[in-house]
């Protein structure tokens, strides 16, 4: 039973994802106005030759802060998982 449900979900998912190749064409994006702005003004506004960096650290700098925070979360989480427990530290009885 479970297998059939999983299979059905996959068929639906693959079918819905297939709408992506139908609608998008590789190499000719549909709308480009925001990125044209970056390429045209990014170099002068941020004084960086690398437009990707100017997007990453200037126009979308807050995302980059968020992504550093995600890495920080991962590091703190891994540290929390591999910590040494105190002598006799018990959390549960069951």
């Amino acid at each position, binding site marked *: 039973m479970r297998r059939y449900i999983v299979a059905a979900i996959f068929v639906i998912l693959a079918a*819905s*994802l297939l*709408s*992506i190749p*139908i*609608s*998008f064409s590789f190499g000719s*994006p*549909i*709308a*480009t*106005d*925001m*990125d044209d*702005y*970056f390429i045209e*003004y990014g170099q002068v506004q941020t004084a960086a030759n690398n437009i990707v960096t100017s997007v990453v650290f*200037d*126009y*979308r*700098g*807050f*995302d980059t*802060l*968020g*992504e550093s*925070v*995600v890495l*920080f*979360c*991962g590091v*703190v*989480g*891994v*540290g*929390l*998982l591999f*910590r*040494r*427990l*105190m002598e006799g*530290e*018990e*959390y*549960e*009885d*069951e």
Partner: protein
Amino acid sequence: MITDAIIANSPALLVMIPLIAAFACPFIGRISPAVRNIWVVGAMVLTAAMALLLAGEVFSSGTVVYTFGASAPGMSVPPDSGGIPVRIVFTVDAMSALMQIIGAITGLSIVLYSIAGDRRHTGLESYYTLYLLMIAGVMGMVSTGDLFNFFVFLEILSISSAGLIAYRIDRGVAVEAAVKYFVLSTIGAMVILVAIGIFYGEYDALNIAVIASRMQFTLLDQVALVLMIAALGMKCGAVPMHFWTPDAYSMAPSSITAMLVVASQASLYGLFRVVFTLYNVTLNAATVGWIIIVLGVLSMVVGVTMAIPQKDVKRLMAYHAISQTGYMLLGVGVGLAVLGNQSLLDAFGYVAMEGGIFHIINHAMYKGLLFLTAGAIFYRIGTRNLNRMGGLGHNMKYTMVFFVIGALAIAGIPPFNGFASKLMIYESVFMFNPILSIIAMVVSILTLASFVKVFHSIFMGPRLPEYADVKEAPAPMLIGMGILAAVVVLFGLFPGVVVDHLIEPAAQALVNQGAYISAVMGGA
């Protein structure tokens, strides 16, 4: 001067304060536990103050727009860009402000609760770091007006939650619950990213307002809608995708469970934001509305029926949390189903949505309170098994009072806040479809029955010999629970005030897509 700067930058500070506090927390934690506790509580108080300040600003003078890195916070559209926002924009409207208030109040009471509760454990500076990151994640998720930024904060929230769910690493089950939660939420977040990629490819925009103004509702948009509803529905624990909820909620420390409730509601906020602000009337409102209603009804019924036979008190409450999420989906779904029809919307649509949104804030308060009382009981007696409890009412009187307040609120008994929001849902849904309303009432009665049973088996009965010298929960725990209980009672006594000043603007903000778009794009 300084106050002006704080008010002008409050949306950024709301996220920055918990972030800076979290970054410094590993250092502070090395000094001494007391200093760390003061640091964490101080950061949380500041965050809550900032949330209230920002909410006051939003409710008095309308949507606040904050553009990161522009020459002025309101300059979301650069003059030379041809009318499109190119930077990340925080758009805080009444709905976001409401969610921020929920996060602030619940977060503050939970942190007061946990500084007492987790004193005897290791790894606490990591615990508080991740806790503060969770707060930052919730605040960012509900404030942002940018889809990719939403995804980033969603990931911050899921990674920090996953680490905290596995906090009790001496038991394999906690790690197992964390794996379940984290695998599902990672896949959910990735699915959301596919949808964001689809929007980007179609409209070359990531800002919600821009995408909303360009929305065509093509085949791709329909696929993206389905992906978004599935992923966010899973993150908020609606029924066909609910199976992580009981495990994660029951295995996490109680304070984290209460925060996970808020986290799941931030996902619910995301779902509403997508449906109402991103698509609004371009989609077939009746169909999508009915999908959400069906999800809600399934959640209500399945949640409560699964809850009744549970023996683990937190697991039982987790199933009730699923069931209560159903009420929110039902109320807002009814509002969505009549979105295109102004007369029906005025007749009962707004009331249904207000009921659903009011239930979000009520649920965060009383469910947080219930999980905290369960945690206090576990803290004192060391078991969550209902069959082994009994007679605790003699020793833990305040905890019992708080539990009763929470239980009556979740069951929808006046004069507590659950009653106020459930009544709005019953009345309005009855005008939409009587059967749905009757189901909701039956579920509410079953909830009451279930909690009467729980109350009886925890607190009533003779004093058990093994719990003869159990003490009342420590004072900071009681203060944390007391804040939530006070809010539950206040909202229950004065629902009219809350609805008029908080809930109604939030519902209007959700329905009124044009106002959201023009707030960002300057009336374009």
